[in-house]
């Protein structure tokens, strides 16, 4: 029985330590963000990695999600004779929920795991120590550009996912389900407000912060050679994905109040 309580105690201690370390890294990153010199080349490289290189997977996810949403919502709305609402259903779902969440999850899987692996490898091969010995702060040099890239590029990718999702929904609705294109577009414009898109973008900003911060944290504090690097990548994906879904609930509940 005492073993059980020891286990719970260790888990709690570990959770508190990790939370503290993540917030400390966030604090240090915010401080270093405003300390010159600003290495824009490094930032652009990360923005390209997080944004441009995630474009294809986001386009693919967004388009198929929009298409499947059209099919499912048509199936449901037909029962109430409300097929004309397929357009706004797809657009609202994409803008408020699925665009930011799916983009967050896909970028976590692609870019977040790669960030954790890269920083983890740098840790176990002493490259991070080498930065310290050369009087270069690794938080400023490695973590800050990744976090900025995450929070800037996620909203951009979300807009793309929203747009392609609505386009996918339009394609299926008009060409497969034979909904009138004028009705589809007209109803979508009637029901979807700018604040719906804006709320989704606020979410994506937080998701970008979560995925880049968690990936940097897991990579930066990697221990235990190649096995540790693999563990860091896995942990970063699991932890960031769960935190994105939890944050999504709280952000949604705040936005709908």
């Amino acid at each position, binding site marked *: 029985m005492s073993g059980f309580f020891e286990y719970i105690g260790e888990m709690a201690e570990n959770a508190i330590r990790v939370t503290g370390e993540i917030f400390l890294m966030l604090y240090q990153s915010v401080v270093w963000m405003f300390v010159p010199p600003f290495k824009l080349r490094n930032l652009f490289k990360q923005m390209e990695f997080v944004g441009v290189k995630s474009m294809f997977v986001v386009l693919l996810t967004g388009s198929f999600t929009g298409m499947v949403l059209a099919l499912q919502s048509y199936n449901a709305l037909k029962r109430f004779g409300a097929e004309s609402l397929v357009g706004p259903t797809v657009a609202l779902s994409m803008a408020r929920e699925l665009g930011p969440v799916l983009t967050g999850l896909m970028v976590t899987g692609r870019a977040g795991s790669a960030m954790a692996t*890269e920083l983890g*490898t*740098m840790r176990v*091969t*002493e*490259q991070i*120590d*080498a930065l*310290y*010995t*050369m*009087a*270069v*702060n690794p938080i400023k040099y490695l973590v800050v550009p990744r976090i900025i890239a995450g929070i800037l590029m996620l909203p951009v990718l979300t807009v793309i996912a929203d747009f392609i999702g609505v386009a996918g929904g339009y394609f299926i609705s008009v060409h497969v389900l034979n909904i009138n294109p004028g009705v589809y577009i007209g109803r979508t414009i009637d029901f979807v407000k700018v604040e719906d898109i804006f709320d989704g973008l606020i979410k994506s900003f937080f998701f970008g912060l979560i995925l880049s911060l968690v990936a940097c944290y897991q990579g930066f504090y990697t221990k235990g050679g190649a096995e540790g690097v693999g563990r860091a990548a896995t942990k970063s994906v699991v932890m960031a994905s769960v935190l994105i879904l939890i944050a999504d609930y709280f952000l949604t509940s705040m936005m709908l109040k």
Partner: protein
Amino acid sequence: MIKITDLKKSFNSKKVLDGVNLDIEQGKITVIIGRSGEGKSVLIKHIIGLLKPDGGSISLDDEDITAMDEKELNNVRKRFGMLFQSAALFDSMTVAENVGFPLKEHTDMDEDKIMEIVKDKLKRVGLVGVENMMPADLSGGMKKRVGLARAIAMDPEIVLFDEPTTGLDPIMSDSIAHLMLETQKDLKTTYIAITHDIPLTYKIADKIAMLHEGKIIETGTVKEIKASTNPVLMQFVEGRAEGPIKVY
């Protein structure tokens, strides 16, 4: 120049450094020897401020490094260069970018001037025409040479070497030893190396210090160390399994 006084460090309950005392002379090569796991790397990481001790001090020109904050440490670190055991080259950068990295970070030099210095440092370590190669394309010996070129890029006053010959064949080890001697002679730099490579130690050291069970148990010149009757030191330098050092 560097004075280590009663330096103590434990990890969990294991005492790694248990009162290390050592003076490191300016412009000389000091080699710290000891078995693997005796805390040599821990000691060198304290000298450059990567670790904070539990007790004791390290004075550099009468300033205590162990009491410095990160900003002060960064100013001190600009006086150091370090060659890591694995060379620790940045995978995503070319050889030239690796060697020029500290210059780019800490000076206002333009690209041409940096490239000129990079080529000069690479030439000093016997490498020509490798500027655009990636670290993954280099052999172990070449990586160490590039690591040394990067360590001396800023013309530091002190260069630290963490196991400079580990993983190299005997010929390449000898070549690294010559390189260390030549560059030290040229630059009049203070070199501090940690190693268990006894031939390297005898070849390069002005002063040898033996770290054992968390303490420096013997110091001296090559001649003095060879003449020592300390049984622990003798067992280690002669590479015998039998003796006071227990082999687990």
